[in-house]
């Protein structure tokens, strides 16, 4: 029988954190930011079915990067928690803060107790009645939780993306120009310059003015129209056009 090597706890934590960071950095980023009508969520994602962005509850959205099966587990947990809570009490009693806390605790426990940390970074966003009531939380692999103001980027080389976002972000931007800001930031990831097309993007909004469930995916023709508007800078004028809100939705 061989004796296991002694590893100092500090070293153990550092190794785990490095492992998780490397895993997360391999993937593409996702960004969440406010716009004049609510909260926009954009991820660099080729798949139309394996979502990085999802609905948790009436006003609450979820964005994640990293290993799919791990964050999918977290998403299912969040939906279950929210639905039980909302059924037991009232729909208005489910909050983004609760969900963010549960995610933080779960990730924190996994990080300190399991050999392998989860390689995920997630965002919980809740759209409020007005822009000041919006909440955006970022939760990292070790269970740290950050209350973000206005915008956040996770995964990949999120620092590059964050810097880009910071330069261009405006909380009162139209949907088209906010989407333009987001896609430009994502395109500059890793210092490389890419062109992101509708097919590479997963886009969803939490629309303040919607009734019942605020979460809506944007894809197909409507997404292409918004991307074109954003690029040509006509976003502001187009926001008044009622047709721009139509298009194919899911």
């Amino acid at each position, binding site marked *: 029988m061989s004796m296991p090597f002694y590893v100092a706890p500090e070293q153990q934590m550092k190794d785990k954190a490095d492992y998780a960071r490397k895993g997360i950095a391999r993937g593409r980023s996702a960004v969440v930011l406010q716009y004049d009508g609510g909260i926009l969520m954009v991820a660099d994602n080729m798949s139309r*079915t394996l*979502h990085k962005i*999802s*609905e*948790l509850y009436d006003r609450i959205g979820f964005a994640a990067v990293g290993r799919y099966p791990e964050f999918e*587990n977290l998403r*299912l*947990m969040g*939906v*279950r*928690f929210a*639905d*039980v809570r*909302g*059924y*037991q009490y009232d729909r208005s009693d489910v909050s983004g803060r609760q969900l963010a806390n*549960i995610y933080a*605790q*779960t990730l*924190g*426990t996994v990080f300190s107790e399991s050999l392998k940390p989860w390689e995920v970074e997630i965002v919980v966003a809740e759209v409020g009645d007005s822009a000041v009531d919006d909440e955006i939380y970022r939760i990292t692999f070790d*269970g740290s939780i950050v209350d973000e103001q206005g915008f956040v980027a996770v995964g990949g080389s999120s620092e590059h993306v964050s810097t880009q976002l910071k330069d261009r972000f405006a909380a009162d931007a139209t949907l088209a120009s906010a989407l333009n800001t987001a896609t430009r930031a994502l395109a500059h990831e890793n210092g490389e310059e890419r062109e992101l097309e509708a097919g590479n993007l997963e886009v969803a909004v939490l629309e303040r003015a919607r009734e*019942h*469930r605020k979460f809506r995916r944007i894809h197909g023709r409507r997404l292409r129209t918004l991307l074109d508007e954003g690029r040509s800078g006509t976003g502001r004028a187009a926001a008044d056009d009622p047709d721009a809100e139509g298009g194919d939705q899911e």
Partner: protein
Amino acid sequence: MFEGFEGGRMPAAFMSAGTSSFTEFLGAVSPELLPGHNPPAQGGGEHLTPDATTIVALTFSGGVVLAGDRRATQGNVIAKRDVDKLFRTDEFSAVAYAGAAGFGIELARLYQVELEHYEKMEGRALSLEGKANKLAQMVRGNLGMAMQGFAVIPLLVGYDERSEEGRLFSYDVVGGRYEEQNYHSIGSGSVYAKGSLKKLYREGLSEEEAFKAVLEALYDAADDDSATGGPDLHRKIFPLVDVITEDGHRRVAAEEIERLATEVVERRAAHPDGPTAPLS
């Protein structure tokens, strides 16, 4: 917090791939929240919750209309004049119930969460057939309570995005599921309402004609069934009407129903038995 949320871990069931059904999940983690968890020891409890009365529904060219009167009764007493028995269950479906009110509300709320939960877990909504079958299982689950005197029966209406039409589903107490053609009614006044709809229904009704038809049918039900409430002009309590089309679910504005219902009452002042059907 949930029982077992200790040491920063949710119970294992929350994290398992497991089921997309909310009812099944709730049964595993918090069975005490499910309907019928704590049934009364014996029958004879019928007086404990009021009875909800008449519901009518019919299809029209653009989808389906669901309407209910506002009365709930307890024996020969009017328990409530302004009850809302219609529930939007998701973007393209709604249910209404007749029978034991307390259990009907619980059934409808659980069904609402069930549909939304499935949609979120799976990333796509159930088909209308799937929704109808799920409701059948839930009604069947209430059989024990029904045997104790707490029978509740739902009526499901929905817009089928695949066949692009409005559809109706009725149920019996044991969970039998029946698709209805064109129109249907449940509850104490349903016999009269259905007779009325039979004469009023035509293919290709417009939306407003459909509203008029359900209001006339509810008037006829209230006319002959003491447990069904008619339009209450003095208190401004009118039937509730939901409509589901390809654009989704919409509760028809109270002002519009007030206008149409007041017209019905005025027409009945001249012809108390309402519109007549030609004999040939």
